[in-house]
């Protein structure tokens, strides 16, 4: 079975490195913010139009404007989130680089070595 499945990280530093090949980003990863923000604001805008007792296909400039604004807002939130985690990882990576002794490469073990013998006591 060797060679199939995702690549495993060899050390903590590798785990914190981006594009280490250990994971694939979600296909919609880059447009996620646009989609969620846009959809929420489009729904909200149509709900408001319905609440004003008007046909959904009226005041389109408002609906479109609110949707575009919502998409941009969603993307902004997404970018903020990305930035937050990137910064966190960079801090951790830096710490690992400064203290290599505390973070040795992972030891490959078999489960037989991990599990302790079970001795039933009756």
């Amino acid at each position: 079975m060797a060679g199939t499945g995702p690549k495993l990280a060899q050390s903590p530093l590798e785990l914190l490195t981006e594009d280490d090949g250990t994971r694939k980003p979600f296909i919609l990863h880059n447009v996620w913010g646009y989609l969620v923000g846009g959809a929420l604001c489009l729904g909200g805008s149509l709900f408001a139009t319905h609440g004003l007792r008007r046909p959904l296909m009226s005041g389109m400039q408002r609906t479109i404007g609110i949707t575009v604004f919502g998409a941009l807002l969603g993307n902004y939130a997404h970018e903020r989130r990305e930035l937050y985690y990137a910064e966190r990882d960079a801090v951790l990576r830096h710490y690992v680089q400064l203290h290599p002794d505390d973070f040795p490469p992972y030891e490959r073990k078999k489960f037989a070595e991990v599990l302790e013998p079970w001795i039933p006591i009756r």
Partner: protein
Amino acid sequence: MTSLFRVTLRNSGISNFLFQFSGNNEMKFTRTITSKLVKEARPQTESKPKPWPYKEKKYNYFHQFIDRTSSRFDDNSKIIVVEGPVAAGKSKFAKQLADDLDMYYLPEANLDMYYFNDYGFDLRTLDDQLPENARSFDVNNFLMNPRSIQSASFQMNQYYIKLSQYVDALAHVLSTGQGVVLDRCCYSDFVFLEAMYSQGYVSKAAHKKYYDMRNETFGHLLRPHLIIYLDVPVPKVQENIQKRALSYEVKSPALTKEYLTEMEKHYKQNYLKEMSKHSALLIYDWSDGGDPEVVVEDIERVDFNRHDNQDLKFKDWVQHLEEDWAYLRRKYCNEKNYILTLSQVTVFDVPELLLGPEEAHERHELYNNAPGNEFEYGYNAKMGDKNFLFKMSAKYRDTLPLRERRQY
């Protein structure tokens, strides 16, 4: 609060000094209502700003700095109410009076104004699809069936629609400076309630609720300047009803001698007595009709400018600051719905004013899906509205239509 910090010339005496040199003081007119004829003969000295289109255009806070409410006021910016018993010839007289005084005539508020929607669809045509107590109930229904369970709510609706009309009248005076002649008003509506109560058509609890509603909304209005009461004795009223020959009035079990007497009693002993403290009052014996021109002459003799701090007469209309007028104008133009909402008093204890949830739901569904009621005015494709794909505006205020009561 602003008035506390405001430095004005009004009280300083300088204004009087300035006034001596401002304009022509040789000719002095008494400040009172003038008829169209006199107005035309008089030289036009000052020009008024154009009437504010209050039905379409909102008067917001910042407008007061460029559009002064009092600049449109003149001697004829008054509210006149014509009162009287049934079939006294009020509408004809009021119409004539409005014409003579160059004022705006508002027909008597009636539930036709409510039952016809903006597209002219009559909600009463849906009655056969509704349960008995959720159907429409109008004056003719009341007159034919006064002991109906809906009589009390009918009377509440009558007050509501009259209140709505009176707010419109105030908005008209403040926005255009033109006077208004009303045919009955919300202040006198209680005489009908009292007459109904005396005959046992409404219960004591409903009677009390009516006054709760009336007291909630009262303080927000300015009382009329002038009330003209056309007095017709009861036998003559009955004769007039026969002469008018409206089937539901002639055959009505409600319009009895007792009912009409009670109405007259409350008109004279409650309404006129109370209102004469606040408004000018003219009473005419209208048994055989009369000449509106004589009334116009009498109106021209009334001094509407007389007011005193200790006197209640015309006191509602004494506003010292321009912003007070602007405040009132915003209230009557923009916040009409607020005043109307105040009339929706809580009712839990009067069964005749309550409607069961199933019936209420049924009526709500039916009325909201009626032609023209599906969407807001201007957005109904089924009624021929077009091009609303990019439309965002809507009516900012519900002005009652000038619709006379249907007579059949």
